[in-house]
């Protein structure tokens, strides 16, 4: 006879089925999370002086590290620069292609295609656009008589340049979630708005936008996470430069671990990143739990 899941043996079977996944998750998510916190309390070791316990000293030197503050502030501006713009564009794109209009399949394709490309490929393409004098942007500006500019070499323009590229890459991805949400709205809403003589802007602001709120929340959470996880483009475009003007937290962690070989300081920085992700997770939990009410 075969065991039914309601049988007491279900505990054994359940855990056995879970075992392969559990081993891998513990090995590459839970254990390293704890190990990172542990390692952050040790000093950087070398051949003469082995690594030893130093408590919170790494955190103290982190707070005095100007580059740490620099990358944190950069990450903040990177998030502020990319998230609202790409979400607004995503809503606009979704609204635009949600109606029957000439060439709709092409339009959707055009908006979405950057999403399917690796960030490295995107960076390779945009590297040329931003190159001084011969790059596409300087060429176009040149037609209007503007002089060339080293977009990625100037600390004042490097972060905005990367922000523009990221918006281009991400807006289409967020668009599909809004499209899905819009397609679930009853078509009578628009009819009613037309009959009532509501203006288009009023209809969007008072009807569509509030109904899209759950989607917006989901997209925002993902956008925040991406702004901390996505650093691939820095490897091609700037290496965090010039003078750390475009450096981001995860890239700085990489530099410390694999260029300066200070894994303990890298662990300390990783704890900060983990704390940020935990805050986002909690925000998501509480916001989704409270639900967003439709007015």
């Amino acid at each position, binding site marked *: 006879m075969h065991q039914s899941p309601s049988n007491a043996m279900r505990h054994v079977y359940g855990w056995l089925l879970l075992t392969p996944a*559990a081993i891998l998750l513990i090995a590459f998510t*839970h254990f390293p999370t704890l190990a990172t916190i542990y390692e952050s309390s040790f000093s950087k070791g070398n051949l003469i002086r082995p690594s030893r316990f130093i408590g919170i000293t790494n955190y103290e030197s982190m707070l005095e590290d100007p580059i740490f503050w620099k990358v944190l502030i950069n990450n903040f501006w990177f998030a502020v620069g990319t998230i609202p713009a790409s979400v607004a564009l995503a809503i606009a794109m979704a609204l635009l292609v949600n109606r029957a209009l000439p060439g709709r399949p092409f339009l959707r394709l055009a908006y979405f295609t950057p999403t399917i490309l690796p960030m490295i*490929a995107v960076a390779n393409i945009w590297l040329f656009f931003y190159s001084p004098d011969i790059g596409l942007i300087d060429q176009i500006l040149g037609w209007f008589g503007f002089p060339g500019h080293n977009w990625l070499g100037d600390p004042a323009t490097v972060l905005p340049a990367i922000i523009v590229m990221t918006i281009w890459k991400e807006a289409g991805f967020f668009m599909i979630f809004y499209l899905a949400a819009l397609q679930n709205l009853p078509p009578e809403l628009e009819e009613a708005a037309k009959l009532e003589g509501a203006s288009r802007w009023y209809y969007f602001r008072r009807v569509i936008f509030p109904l899209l709120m759950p989607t917006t929340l989901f997209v925002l959470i993902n956008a925040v996470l991406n702004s901390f996880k996505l650093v691939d483009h820095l490897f*091609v475009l700037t290496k965090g430069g010039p003078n750390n003007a475009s450096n981001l937290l*995860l890239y700085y962690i990489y530099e410390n671990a694999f260029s300066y070989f200070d894994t303990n300081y890298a662990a300390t920085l990783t704890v900060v990143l983990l704390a940020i992700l935990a805050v986002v997770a909690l925000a998501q939990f509480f916001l989704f739990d409270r639900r967003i009410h439709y007015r």
Partner: protein
Amino acid sequence: MSQAEIKRRHWTFLEALETVAAWFVAILWIAPLLYAFWAAFHASEYAIHFELFAPLTLENFREALSQAPFLRYGFNTFVLVTMLLASQLVICTLAAYAFARYNFAGSNIAFSLVLVQLMIAPEILIVENYSTLAKLNLIDTITGIGLPYMASAFGIFLLRQAFKSTPKELEEAARLEGCGMFGILWRVYVPLARPIYLAYGLVSISHHWNNFLWPLVVTNSVETRPLTVGLGIFGAPESGVDWSIISAATLLSVAPLLIAFLLFQRQFIQSFMHSGIK
């Protein structure tokens, strides 16, 4: 003309205006890709001085292939993505089956611990995961690139949902027919979840085809490097390669995934939407 009539006309006018705007944005959005595509097929002097009817050439592709082993990188990526997806499907199916149908002790806590991976992806913990991989002697192997991603919280989550919505009567019927634990899974649950498997498969393939940071850290030889890492090294400014050749190399690297996407657009976009249910 009534007030309502004016407003309705206003809507029609705005809709026409929106069509123009939609096309304008679309052209702006696709232009960078078209330009890269164009440049890849033209001699490098035209990348700097655009001429629509400049002579076509395949020289850039020949140069790219002779300067870096992109075919080998492509093969590595293919092996990585295939091996990873196969392991993910097996591991996630088993775990999802346990969560959906075996109400075992501690399953709720275990499930929350699985979901932690949605927030903390393995590449966030590069330092510790690298040292784990070194202890396992898996640095610079394709298995090493894939291993941390084989148990995917997202896959377990999606499949658990699918299995939970499968009617229990089907399971009872299969049991009466003499199916065991794995028989039921294989004959009832897996076939009914086929659309979810497709969706998850497409998300996994495109994610790992494009993944960069972790493979960069793990690999250091031509035999293991995936396309993204090869392309990253090739395109870095200090390598001093001509932009037209970089365009050709970029096109070569993204072509397989891009062609698959163009052929199966609907499936791709729907799978990406699925990733929104988490």
